[in-house]
Structures are given as C-alpha cells and as structure tokens.
C-alpha cells in the first residue's frame, strides 16, 4: 500500500518535500546527528574532568568544548527536538489534518535550522568560540574568538523556531477535523500550542539581542559594553527574556508527550484534562515573568532579585498540577511497562528532582550560595535531559510504529532505557554534592577532594553513551528489519492511530469526524 515513505523516491523528493511527515524525518536525522556531536563534546568534557589537572585538553580548548556542547545541545537538539521533529509528525495527524497550514514554510524552517547550524559550526574552523552558550557581555565583545558566526547561526536558527511556532498556531486554529473543538484536542497538541506561543513571542527578542551584540562588536555601538557606555546587565535581561521561556520550549512539549504516554499505557482516560490544558498555558505565561532568577548575582538590584524570586515560585503551581494529574491517571490503571512508558516514568522521577532543586534555586539566598557551582549544572541537566530527552526518547519509541510501520525490539528498548536512566543518575547526582561542596562550574580543573565524585560522574557518562548506542542501534535496525506494526499497536485513543502505519501521503483516506473527547 502506498504510504508517505514510498509514494515518491529519490533524494530530491526528500530535500524538496512539503509533506509534514517527511519534514519531521528530516528533523529527526538533523536532531539526532547533532545530538551525537553534542554528546561527543560532553564525553570529552567528562573525560577531562576524570582526573585533577589538565589531562586531555587545555583550559582554552575546554572552554570551547563547553561552549559548543551547550550551543549544539540547546539550539540544534532540544529546542527543535520535540516541536519540530515529533510535533511536525504528530500534530496534523492528531487533529485530523492533511498537513500543516504552510507546508512550504515548514520546509523553510528546516532549512533555517540546517543553515544556521552550518554557520554556527563554521566557527570551529575560525578558531572556535569560548564564551559559553550564553554569550555574556562584555566578554563576548572583547574576546578574539569567533563569536560572530556562532551568534549569526543562532540568529538564523531562531527563525526556524519562529516559523515552526507560527505554522503550528495557524494549523491548530484552522485545520482541526470537523467536530474537534479546542477542548477535544489531545494534550500533546495543547502543549505544542503553548510552546508555539513562546516561540513566536520570545525568539525575536533573542534575535534582536544577538544582532545588537554583533553591531557592538563590528560597529562599536555602546549598548552592552560599559567601556562604550553600555550596560552588560541589560544584555542578560534581553538574553534571559528569551532563554528562560526557551527552557519551557524544551520542556512543555515533553510534558505533552508524557501526558500521551501515561494515558496510553495506563489504559485510562487522562485525569483532569482541563487542568492539564490550563497548566500548560499557565506555564507558558508565567515563564515570561521569571527570567531574572538567572541574574541574582549579576549586579541586578536586590529589589528586582526579590521580585523575580517570588515570581519564579509560581511556576511550581501548574507544574505540580501536572505531576499530580499524571500520578492520578496511573492510579488503578492497567499499567503496561513498555519502553515508552518507562521513559515516562523516568521523566517523572528525574523531572521531579530537577523541579524541586529548581525551587531551591529560586530561593534567592540559596542561589547566591550555590551560584555557578555544579549544583546548577546538575539541576539544569535533571530538567533538560531528565525532562526533554526522556520526552524525546519516550515519544520516539511511542510513535516509532506509526512513523515506520515497524515495531522495535522491546527487550533492547528496555535495556537502552535502563542504561540511560542509571547512567544519568550516576553522572549527575554526584554533581549536586560537588556543587553544595563548592566546586565551581566551567573550569577544566578542580581541587583534589572533588576527584572521587568527578570520577563517578565520568563513569556515568560512559553508561549514558552506551545506553544511547544500544537504543539507536536497535531503532535503526527496526526501521528496516523490525516486525510489521498494526495501525494501533498500543490501543491508544487519539486520531493518529486511526490512520495506517505508516500513514498515507495526506494522512487519512477520508477526513475523520470527531464526536468524542480526546481520550474516550
């Protein structure tokens, strides 16, 4: 039977496709390729930190490794990971549409990501960059390293994010199947909608900020550099106005994936559908009011610090609503511990630790104590890897049969999860202790008493790498050799499972008519 994978052949049929499912697979290849690159940088960082002293790289190169690890993982992996890859594939199917509202713009957004990434990585051949992924001024203005290509690359990749967000908003408003009211939409669609609002509203601020940075370096306009009459803290305000909501660009879609997984593998209707919807929107709105918690010790005024500290704690409310509702959904459900569900449980466990430590960091005096230590590194990775990566992997395993029409090897899926989950905790939990004990982040070297925990952490990073090698190897094998999948192997309720696996070119042979709630 003709499907989106075999309806057209040849490289150009992929490079110029306007089919959202094919574009999703282009994103998949891009995102996982950069994940390997960013992961390689991370392994080098951990290897350097295995022993006291400069061992395999010098400090200058370490600073570059740290910068590229952050920039690649954030701009090229986690931000496009769920919305652009999983979202592109699933969103039109879940709302019963043939495609997104602007298919050509959708392809353009993938090209923006690839071109932006290419421009960013050309800096590697121009001496590299060592500012950290935050490009803080005045150092980013003064350093002789290749800041401009990296910043311009991030600027171009920002357009990818904006165009995807805009496309999703219009698609959700205009292309829902007959009978699908807003409150009949699956929660993954709601989470993409909330994410899209942030993408459209916040990303332009980053673009303007980065352009101002370039103008300051090239034209010597004094905006952020105090030597030219600028205010370096203003850069941090502008930067975090985007980059804190960006954390929710990374985590909100993962939360949407988790809602789908918990519902499908608990064999129950989701508990508190509307509360989960409003929690997603609430997180999106509150995310714009909390950015100053990144700047407690930057020289920002104490009054602003207090205001941001209080506002930051508000994020805990909708987040707690979500976690409560997920647990309530599982309660007395008929749980099936397949790989996607394991990733959902992994998300709950890791994100809870990341969230609670985030709450600790919201408290101003505590943050001052552990600022720029490994405590922050551990918190951030528990949220980002524990949240986003668990979401991406869980969602990928869940929708894999739909994407490729084949089933993955369950045993190997579970083995991969176990290695990643254990490896993750072995890597990052010791970093909380290192941070509390005062080990600063972003240095290639450390004092001898920190060595044992750093060695445990490095061994954990090898376990994570092994886990991903197992997971990706068997997923790749399953794409071509896995057993054939039925249309709905999980017995899930949402619309995408009514289409064949893999779906035909325009998703449904007949336009579906929605008469029931999303999870009925």
């Amino acid at each position, binding site marked *: 039977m003709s499907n989106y994978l075999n309806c057209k052949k040849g490289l150009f049929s992929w490079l110029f496709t306007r089919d959202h499912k094919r574009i999703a697979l282009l994103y998949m290849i891009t995102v996982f390729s950069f994940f390997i690159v960013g992961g390689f940088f991370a392994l080098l960082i951990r290897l350097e930190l295995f022993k006291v002293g400069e061992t395999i790289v010098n400090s200058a190169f370490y600073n570059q490794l740290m910068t590229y690890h952050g920039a690649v993982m954030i701009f090229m992996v986690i931000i496009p990971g769920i919305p652009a890859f999983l979202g592109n594939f699933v969103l039109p199917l879940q709302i019963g549409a043939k495609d997104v509202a602007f298919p050509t713009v959708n392809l353009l957004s993938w090209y923006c990501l690839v071109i932006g990434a290419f421009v960013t990585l050309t800096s590697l051949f121009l001496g590299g960059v060592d500012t950290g992924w935050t490009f803080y001024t005045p150092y980013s203005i003064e350093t002789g390293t290749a800041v401009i290509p990296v910043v311009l690359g991030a600027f171009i990749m920002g357009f990818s994010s904006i165009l995807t967000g805009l496309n999703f908003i219009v698609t959700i408003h205009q292309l829902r199947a007959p009978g699908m009211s807003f409150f009949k939409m699956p929660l993954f669609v709601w989470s993409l909608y909330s994410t899209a609002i942030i993408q459209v*509203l*916040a990303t332009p*601020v980053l673009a303007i900020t980065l352009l101002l940075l370039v103008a300051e370096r090239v034209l010597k306009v004094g905006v952020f550099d105090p030597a030219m009459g600028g*205010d370096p*803290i*203003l850069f941090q*305000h*502008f930067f975090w*106005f985007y980059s804190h909501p960006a954390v929710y660009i990374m985590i909100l879609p993962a939360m949407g994936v988790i809602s789908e997984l918990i519902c499908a593998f608990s064999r129950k209707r989701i508990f508190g559908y509307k509360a989960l919807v409003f929690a997603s929107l609430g997180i999106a709105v509150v995310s*714009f*009011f909390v*950015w*100053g918690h990144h700047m407690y010790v930057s*020289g*920002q*005024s*104490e*009054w*602003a610090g207090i*205001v*941001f500290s209080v506002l930051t704690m508000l994020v805990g409310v909708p987040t707690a609503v979500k976690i409560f509702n997920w647990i309530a959904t599982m309660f007395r459900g008929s749980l099936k511990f397949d790989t996607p569900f394991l990733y959902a449980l992994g998300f709950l466990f890791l994100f809870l630790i990341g969230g609670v430590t985030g709450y600790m960091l919201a408290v101003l005096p505590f943050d001052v104590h552990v600022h720029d230590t490994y405590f922050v590194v551990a918190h951030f990775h528990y949220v980002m890897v524990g949240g986003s990566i668990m979401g991406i992997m869980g969602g990928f395993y869940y929708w894999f049969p739909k994407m490729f029409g084949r089933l993955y090897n369950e045993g190997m899926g579970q083995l991969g999860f176990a290695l990643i989950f254990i490896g993750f905790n072995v890597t990052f939990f010791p970093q909380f202790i290192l941070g509390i004990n005062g080990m600063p982040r972003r240095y290639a070297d450390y004092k001898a008493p920190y060595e044992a925990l750093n060695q445990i952490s490095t061994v954990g990073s090898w376990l994570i790498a092994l886990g991903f090698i197992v997971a990706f190897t068997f997923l790749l094998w399953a794409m071509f050799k896995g057993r054939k999948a039925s249309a709905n192997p999980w017995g899930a309720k949402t619309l995408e499972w009514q289409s064949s696996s893999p779906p035909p070119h325009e998703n449904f042979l007949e336009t579906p008519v929605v008469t029931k709630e999303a999870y009925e």
Partner: protein
Amino acid sequence: MSIDNSSFKTNLSVLIALLILTVITVLVAQVDFGIFNAFFAMLIAGIKGALVLMYFMHLKYDEKIYSLIFGISVFFVFVLYFFSKLDIITRIIQTSVL
C-alpha cells in the same frame, strides 16, 4: 479593487494627522523636558503607531482576534521593558543610598 470615498477621506485624515504629529515631534525635540524627554517622544510615536495600525493596517476593521494577538505582543514588550526598567531604577536608588 475600488476604494470607496469614505475610506479615502479617513485615510487622508489619518495621513494629515500623522504629518501634524511629525511636526509636533520635531517641535517637542527642541524643548528640554529633562527626564520626560523620552516619555513625550514615545507618547507621540505611540499615537502615530496606533493610527497606522488601526487605519492603514486595518486592525480597526478586521476580526478582533488580530487586535488581541497584537495586544498580547505589546503586553509582552511591556513586560520586558517593565522588569528591565525595575532593575535599572532600583539599582540607581540602591547605589545612591549607598
């Protein structure tokens, strides 16, 4: 597409208003209002922007959802401005007290 007479008159009136406001902008720039210099400049620019949006970009006549989307965008610009300014002003107060 034909332009009806009333909308032509309205657009002409808006154009004249914009020209007058431009002249006022230049005149106001000659006077020193101290710390309110930026306030008056932004006030006039805001009125001009609103006229362009409402009449030339048809927000006044279009579906309300577009005005809502525009309003939300302006609100978030205000959020960025408000909290950044809150920091700067309280920093100045803190420094002057010290």
